[in-house]
């Protein structure tokens, strides 16, 4: 189980970082989404991985194993925030694309951007 979770986080992060380095609006948005998925899974795992256990400590029952509820609350907050942020990012990058007619997110000059467009 650990190896599955760990490699999931690793692959998502690697993909996210790769896409982030493309410096074009759409790949960057996808990359940031992948990174936020990676961090959500990572946060989930910080409370140690416990399978088939309730997130409640039960004193009297037979379920003496329980899973840490705090990371789940943290993940929920992180999901909501990253969801909202992605929406803002999509709108701002759309605005930037419509204004400047290209989707590069590094602040290079106009002529330089055109040369790069031609090269690709």
């Amino acid at each position: 189980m650990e190896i599955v979770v760990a490699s999931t986080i690793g692959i998502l992060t690697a993909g996210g970082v790769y896409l982030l380095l493309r410096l074009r609006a759409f790949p960057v948005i996808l990359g940031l989404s992948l990174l936020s998925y990676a961090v959500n899974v990572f946060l989930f795992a910080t409370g140690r991985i416990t399978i088939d256990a309730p997130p409640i400590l039960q004193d009297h029952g037979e379920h003496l194993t329980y899973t840490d509820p705090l990371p789940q609350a943290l993940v929920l907050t992180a999901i909501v925030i990253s969801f909202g942020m992605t929406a803002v990012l999509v709108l701002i990058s759309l605005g930037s694309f419509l204004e400047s007619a290209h989707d590069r997110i590094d602040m290079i000059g106009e002529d330089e951007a055109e040369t790069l467009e031609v090269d690709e």
Partner: protein
Amino acid sequence: MNHWIIAPVVLPAMLAPIIAFVMRHDIVLSRVFSIAGTLLLTCIAMGLVSIAADGTVHVYKLGDWPAPFGIVLVLDRLSAMLVLVTAVLGLIVAIHAAATGWDTRGRHFHALFQFQLMGICGAFLTGDAFNLFVFFEILLIASYGLMIHSGGKERLRAGLQYVVMNLAGSTLFLFALGTLYASTGTLNIADLAVKVREIPVEDAAMIRVAAMLLMIVFAIKAALFPVQFWLPATYANAPGPVAALFAIMTKVGAYAILRIHTMVFGPDVPALSGMPGDWLYPAAVVTIAIGAFGVLGSTKLLQLIAFSVVGSMGTLMIAISAFTPEALLAALYYLLHSTFAAAALFLMADLVVIRRGSEDLRMLHPAISQNGLLTALFFAGAIGMAGMPPLSGFLGKLLVLDALRDPQVIAVAWTAVLGGSLLTIVGFARAGSSLFWRPAAIAAMPAEAPEPQVVAPPATSAVFAPAIAALAMLVLLTIFAGRVSGYLESTVAELFDPTAYIEAVLGTGEEE
């Protein structure tokens, strides 16, 4: 529990939606409410400073949950002081935005502005690391809106870059918090301060990773090398009053480093053995160099000021990196100074750019209206930022230099701070002469002027008041330097002896 502690968060949080929903079509009403609200915030902040000044640490338990389980807000000298700085700066910026009409050039300026104040005050007050993340996100999402306020191609592109940079930073923040939680099992700052000190040196790997990840995150906010590159483009393209408000945003990063890396990962923690300072120091030196050369090489006025902000963050961080009480006192004094110096320069530059129509320093323009007054303001702001006497920048840099007497660092640190100041002076002098003096010289050549400049609306005193008020804060900081440093001395003592903080938060002493 003193309920005033949460007022700096609740007041803007209530005001912002009211302004956004009820007054969005009435600019006068939203101006009145925004400025009145910020004024009220300033009064509350003054009250909080007087509450905190006696040295007791006040804790506000949200939902009355006991500390390591619930979220707490903590009011001590440091957070009270920074909330007051935020409120005063907010008041200055709000008046400037209303007086110059920036708030009419796009929608929802005042609502976003109040949300921004809420996030900043919350970040200063919170006593929980994850809550710090949440307040960071609130202040960031408001700043995204303010950054692209009134639109425009360059501004949207700079805004996009700023958003992407900060989203990547937020992800890193979450990774850091996850690592911290996995190794200590808590995210309450007071509890962390206890738990981290108990970690034996053999198991230090995880906590070191968490400490350095957190430092990178805060360094992004504080625009420290090598993650400083977003700042010049962002500040130079943001609307003038927004750039002035952003002067406190870099300080939020500096505050977080101060709070977390002295109280939790302080130099006395065996697991870390002073690692944060070792990394902060070279980064700060390079940041000063980048700021100084950037000031020298800038061809635009706002870019020049943005680079001088980078340089001032470097000076601030080089003082923090020493992690000694004297150095932190110097850092806090310089933090207060550089916030108002940067704000004054951005507000003043905004007035110049409105009159001049262009911020390009290489092009000659005829003299602008009210040239004399603006020249005087720019001169005073540049003196403050460069650290020349008689303004508080001089005292701040003197304190920083005095605190960095350690023979290991003195050569490099003094060279960096003094050399950086010299280059900043040269850069500002050149910019000032091409902005204000050479136009006067070419005024005699009428044929050169292409067409009459857009005559700026005759400036009332309200337009100049905010920039002058920001400069007046520098003067006050200079005059009351003794009292301010007395307050800061006890602030720093609190940071280095967190027992009172820990006892107050975790309730080892009695509460209420």
